[in-house]
């Protein structure tokens, strides 16, 4: 995996030193609230209901066991012993005290972790498929490109004060695990007829109150030209993006107002002035060196004649949690942290240390985090999967929920977040309680439920099979239901079912929706297939009828 050089580490130290000075100026009254807000957000720091929340980047979802241990130490030393894995390859700590922040960030720099641009109006953490490099049929491993692009926009002098936040995702696989087209900018790695590598570019997607699917602005940008093209997109956005309306800051509003073709004409006009600038060409030497950094730490092994254990509970867990690896003799193991009553994505420091030790023992010391808030062990020998499961069982981490509807994605909600209108985690818990029967869960299959506590849509409810959006009505918590959102094969925003439903009645409604699905599905039909075939009315009738 990618390792920070001494120079990179020096940069992180300089960033912390600068932020500490800014913090001290704020605490002594020399820096006003508004400016400090803008500066602290760029360092991942939010003011929440009860304390400060710090968002730390996990680039491309990859952590070494040592980094995970460092995060566990942070959880113990500065938080209340846990962290929250988010849907965008970050981890959040919810109980941070302001004066301790610089020491915390310094602890992270020791293991090459940081919180730079995890928030604020700049380029955010770039996300990639968490299974990058692991599965068959990939066009190209996206991570070296992600890293070059991330660096390029790290404290970029021209684009650090954009109109709004700017989220980039890059996908090199055939299926889209990254949800490219709900990002401000999505890059799909493709090959042209001459087998040259390049990017298809999508701009202007986003969730939130006005969910939009990104428009294609370029069908093929040669890989070496991608930095200049991205700069042109950001330059047009920086100059023309709306700054006058708090709810129209994102690039999606600019693309909508100009129209996608006019927007891409402006981008091209700018790009033609810079595309031949040698300084802006992708550095192929760096790219090669990054490819070596990201090379897999394993080689294929022959396990002919290996018979796996047939323990019943193990088999159920394995069916839901283990996937084929492109390297023969290896498996990809998904670990669900979802437990009844616990917040999705929440992980205790003790669990982090256990996972770090198990990763050393079973997965070449590497773990990955996913947008469904699960943990992946990317390099497990097929003949060790049973041993891993036994260890996970011992530590109560062998939840077979992965790939079932009990693997709910939820934001922190009103329990923790000052923006939220309604709770998320208690709803997830109640759904899990209602469906607390593994036989039933296996029968229902892979059905995705995502719960966001407000329109900021941190839990990506628009792209779930069943999405819930929390809101307030006369001081009561209500939830709007959307159905059949998806991104894997094509991108569709979930359709609103009808009037929002009270917190009290929401679990009944979910059960009704699940039943409509089960009663109508044919063999191998997933939720979206059924929804497309029978239409929204069939669901409406049962839920509101």
């Amino acid at each position: 995996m990618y390792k920070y050089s001494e120079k990179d580490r020096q940069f992180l130290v300089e960033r912390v030193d600068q932020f500490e000075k800014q913090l001290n100026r704020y605490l002594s009254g020399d820096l006003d609230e508004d400016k400090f807000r803008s500066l602290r957000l760029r360092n991942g720091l939010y003011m929440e209901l009860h304390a400060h929340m710090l968002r730390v980047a996990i680039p491309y979802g990859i952590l070494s066991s040592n980094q995970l241990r460092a995060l566990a130490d942070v959880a113990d030393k500065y938080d209340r012993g846990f962290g929250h894995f988010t849907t965008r390859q970050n981890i959040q700590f919810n109980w941070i005290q302001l004066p301790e922040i610089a020491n915390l960030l310094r602890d992270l720099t020791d293991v090459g972790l940081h919180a730079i641009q995890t928030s604020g109006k700049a380029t955010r953490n770039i996300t990639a498929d968490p299974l990058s490099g692991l599965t068959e049929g990939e066009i190209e491993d996206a991570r070296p490109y992600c890293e070059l692009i991330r660096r390029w926009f790290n404290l970029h002098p021209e684009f650090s004060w954009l109109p709004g936040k700017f989220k980039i995702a890059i996908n090199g696989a055939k299926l889209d695990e990254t949800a490219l087209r709900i990002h401000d900018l999505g890059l799909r790695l493709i090959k042209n007829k001459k087998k040259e590598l390049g990017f298809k570019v999508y701009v202007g997607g986003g969730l939130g109150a006005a969910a939009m699917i990104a428009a294609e602005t370029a069908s093929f940008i040669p890989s070496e030209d991608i930095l200049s093209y991205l700069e042109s997109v950001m330059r047009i956005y920086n100059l023309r993006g709306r700054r006058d309306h708090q709810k129209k800051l994102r690039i999606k509003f600019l693309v909508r107002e100009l129209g996608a073709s006019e927007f891409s004409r402006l981008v091209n006009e700018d790009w033609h002035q810079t595309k031949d600038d040698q300084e802006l060409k992708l550095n192929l030497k760096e790219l090669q060196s990054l490819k070596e950094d990201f090379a897999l730490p394993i080689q294929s092994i022959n396990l002919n004649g290996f018979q796996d254990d047939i323990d019943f509970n193990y088999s159920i867990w394995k069916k839901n949690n283990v996937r084929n690896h492109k390297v023969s003799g290896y498996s990809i193991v998904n670990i669900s942290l979802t437990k009844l009553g616990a917040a999705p994505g929440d992980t205790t420091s003790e669990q982090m240390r256990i996972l770090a030790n198990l990763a050393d023992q079973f997965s070449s010391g590497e773990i990955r985090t996913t947008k469904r808030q699960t943990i992946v062990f990317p390099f497990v020998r097929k003949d060790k999967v049973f041993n891993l499961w036994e260890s996970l069982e011992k530590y109560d981490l062998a939840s077979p929920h992965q790939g079932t509807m009990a693997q709910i994605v939820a934001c922190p909600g009103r329990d923790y977040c000052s923006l939220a209108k309604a709770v998320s985690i208690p709803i997830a818990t109640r759904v899990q309680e209602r469906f607390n029967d593994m036989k039933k869960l296996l029968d229902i299959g892979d059905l995705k439920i995502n719960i966001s506590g407000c329109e900021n849509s941190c839990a990506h409810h628009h792209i779930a099979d069943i999405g819930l959006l929390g809101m307030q009505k006369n001081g009561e918590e209500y939830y709007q239901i959307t159905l059949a959102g998806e991104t894997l094969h094509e991108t569709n925003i979930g359709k609103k079912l009808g009037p929002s439903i009270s917190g009290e009645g929401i679990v009944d409604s979910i059960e009704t929706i699940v039943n409509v699905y089960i009663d109508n599905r044919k063999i191998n039909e997933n939720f979206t297939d059924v929804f497309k075939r029978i239409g929204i009315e069939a669901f409406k009738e049962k839920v509101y009828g």
Partner: protein
Amino acid sequence: MDEIKNPSYLINKDYESINLVTFDEWIEDSEKLSKLGVGIILKPQDDIYSIQEQLELIELIALDFSNFDDGRGYTQAYLLSKRWKYVGEIIAINAHLDQLQFMIRSGITSYQLLESYKGSIDEDYSHGFSLCYQAAANNNGLHLQY
């Protein structure tokens, strides 16, 4: 105008005597003003492309950075400095301490901090980082990591 700083590594020129006009004033009567030899104050919302052909007539350009979160000035500085090779002074006026290095790297040649930063140590912010990850109008003195 308050104190304007020209760090030694930035271009220096005698411009204190130059009269400044607003962008709107310039657009209204650029022919007359260009004969007088004036500089222009550009606000973030002013359309910089409309003066692209007239740069030779403008003695200096002052970019107003008073709004901390409005980043259009950085693109204006980049276009003037790097793309259009403007030879006059590009001054950041009403500048904020914490953004100095971003401005310098985007192509400004001198700056005037807002009054409220008087007495602060500019060096911490104009030279805060020793390394950069991207090409820019001015990367002087930085270790280039790209």
